[in-house]
């Protein structure tokens, strides 16, 4: 029997009751639910393990420990920020989907067995697609379908892997697994899809920019970080994760330079950030895992902040194309300022959250992974481009687009303000974050060498931007689509399938024309031999056949009763 409700469930139950809540009370209700859910989590013991035997299988629906807590906390924070930011939403379906999505992501974080994890994993997939479809455009519909197929596919792999793992070991416990068998390999792949590993990544850049203004903020927080948590739980110290993570940090930055849709730039940027966390999981030491958790925590806040700022721009101007924007600092000074805080945080400037969070993984990589370290350093300069410079520069400065719009609505400014404040608080007072990490740490982020080298890296990169802009070398923002891996399933696969179908059709036509001639010959032969004068030589109509069947049945019944 379950004594305590799993964490996050207050949000899911709250979604079920949402239609009954009158419109006037909706805002208070939507902001109150994450607070209630957080209070519920706080009320649970810090080492609670709740077991349940279900059809003879031991399940652990709730397992509270330091690793799940740090993700649980920041997920609640993200749910609260998104609730405030999304107060303009009037669509009940979208509000409910957001609550179920956040609630099941939190529940997944506290799942102690693979089946509970699977249930919550699929719930996040199904609920979140409504945040994409909520845009109600043709494009969002197609994008959402692709997203759903891939997310559900990840869940199916997780279930299949869990079943195989159960057969192998007799256990469904979600503990350190490691890639040791086909079962654990499938689970690893399932996590890899949601964590947007290279070549499995495109659902992210495809779907997130198509979601609603408020939906993208929620999406940015949960799915991928749930996958990072799951990797840290099940596959810490798996060596292959180090090169996978390093590749993830590097390749999206090239796309981020070229991309015109600023929310898609942020999606590539998100992918690049996940790479740092994956490297941390791959290294797997206490320092590295602390780094993954710290980076995830700080990242959820500043990434939400950046998506909120770009969402506000889209909300007010109706476009998010860099080529159509610029000079918005005049109309939206608050949004511009908050965005700059987010940019400084993600670029990891001293006194901002990224600086104190990113250092763990960088240090862990420097000890024993030299190539990875220099790739991460390259990627850090890349972050400076796409999120540090490109996002604020092309939206708010660059060339005046002539657009004069209203500042973001008050609730958006409050959400962005809280997020910006948190970025600075964590940056200035890192102990607040370090106290939440899964392993105790006495790391001191502020020493001269760290501050000076980081400032050198970032400011010289910014100088590079200045030089390239002044010489006219920096590639202009243009309306375009850049081919990425999704080309293989959006263009190549349909084209190949189309070719296959046409080839099959031709074969069928060729065969059937041959076969048809055979049938015609047989029919002619039959009619030639037919003797129409006899009873059974006639070709019958259906009615005649039915009559005969009735007569036979009647005869059978009579004989039955007579006998």
């Amino acid at each position, binding site marked *: 029997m379950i004594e305590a409700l799993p964490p996050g469930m207050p949000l899911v139950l709250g979604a079920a009751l949402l239609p009954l809540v009158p419109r006037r009370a909706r805002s208070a209700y939507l902001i109150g639910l994450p607070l209630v859910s957080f209070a519920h989590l706080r009320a649970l013991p810090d080492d609670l393990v709740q077991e349940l035997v279900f059809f003879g299988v031991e399940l652990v629906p709730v397992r509270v420990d330091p690793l799940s807590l740090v993700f649980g906390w920041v997920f609640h924070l993200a749910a609260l920020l998104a609730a405030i930011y999304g107060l303009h939403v009037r669509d009940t379906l979208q509000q409910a989907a957001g609550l179920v999505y956040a609630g099941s992501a939190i529940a997944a974080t506290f799942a102690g067995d693979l089946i509970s994890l699977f249930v919550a994993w699929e719930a996040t997939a199904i609920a979140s697609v409504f945040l994409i479809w909520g845009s109600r455009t043709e494009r969002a519909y197609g994008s959402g379908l692709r997203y759903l197929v891939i997310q559900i596919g990840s869940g199916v792999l997780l279930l299949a892997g869990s079943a195989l793992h159960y057969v192998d070991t007799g256990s469904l416990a979600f503990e350190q697994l490691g890639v040791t068998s086909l079962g654990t390999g499938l689970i690893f792949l399932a996590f890899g899809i949601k964590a947007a590993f290279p070549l499995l990544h495109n659902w992210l850049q495809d779907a997130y920019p198509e979601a609603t203004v408020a939906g993208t903020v929620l999406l940015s927080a949960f799915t991928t970080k749930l996958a990072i948590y799951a990797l840290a739980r099940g596959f810490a110290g798996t060596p292959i994760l180090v090169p996978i993570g390093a590749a993830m940090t590097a390749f999206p930055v090239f796309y981020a330079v070229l991309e015109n849709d600023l929310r898609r730039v942020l999606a590539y940027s998100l992918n690049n950030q996940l790479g740092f966390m994956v490297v941390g999981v791959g290294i797997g030491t206490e320092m590295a895992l602390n780094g993954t958790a710290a980076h995830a925590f700080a990242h959820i806040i500043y990434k939400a902040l950046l998506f909120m700022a770009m969402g506000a721009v889209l909300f007010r101007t109706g476009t998010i194309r860099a080529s159509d924007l610029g000079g918005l600092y005049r109309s939206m000074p608050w949004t511009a300022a908050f965005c700059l805080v987010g940019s400084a945080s993600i670029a990891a400037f001293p006194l901002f959250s990224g600086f104190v969070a990113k250092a763990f993984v960088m240090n862990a990589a420097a000890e024993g992974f030299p190539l990875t370290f220099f790739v991460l350093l390259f990627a850090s300069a890349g972050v400076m481009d796409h999120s540090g410079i490109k996002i604020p520069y092309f939206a708010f400065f660059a060339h005046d687009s002539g657009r004069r719009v209203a500042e973001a609505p008050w609730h958006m400014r409050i959400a962005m303000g809280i997020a910006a404040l948190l970025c600075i608080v964590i940056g200035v007072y890192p102990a607040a974050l370090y106290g939440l990490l899964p392993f105790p740490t006495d790391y001191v982020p502020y020493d001269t060498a760290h501050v000076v080298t980081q400032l050198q890296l970032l400011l010289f990169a910014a100088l590079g931007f200045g*030089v390239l802009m002044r010489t006219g070398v920096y590639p202009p923002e243009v309306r375009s689509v850049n081919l990425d891996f999704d080309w293989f399933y959006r263009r190549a696969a349909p084209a190949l399938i189309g070719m296959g179908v046409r080839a099959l059709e031709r074969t069928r036509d060729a065969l059937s024309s041959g076969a048809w001639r055979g049938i015609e010959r047989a029919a002619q032969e039959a009619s030639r031999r037919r003797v129409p004068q006899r009873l059974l030589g006639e070709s019958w109509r259906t009615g005649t056949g039915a009559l005969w069947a009735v007569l036979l049945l009647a005869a059978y019944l009579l004989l039955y009763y007579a006998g």
Partner: protein
Amino acid sequence: MDLDGRRFGTRVFYLLAAFCAALFLADFLYAKHPHFEVERWPGFYGLYGFAAYVGLVLAAKRLRRWLRRDEDYYGD
């Protein structure tokens, strides 16, 4: 002054260049605790950041020739 005007941009650029020069000189003033030999070079992080940034943008610009398609390429 307009924050998106040319004059402001020029000033920011020179201010940035001055910061960079100061940061380069700062490298001579403190004790390093490097993991790698190259980190001992004065201004290594600055040079690496500049080279990485410029290399990244030039490479991306080159990639655009192969990757760029019309905005409605996928027909939605």
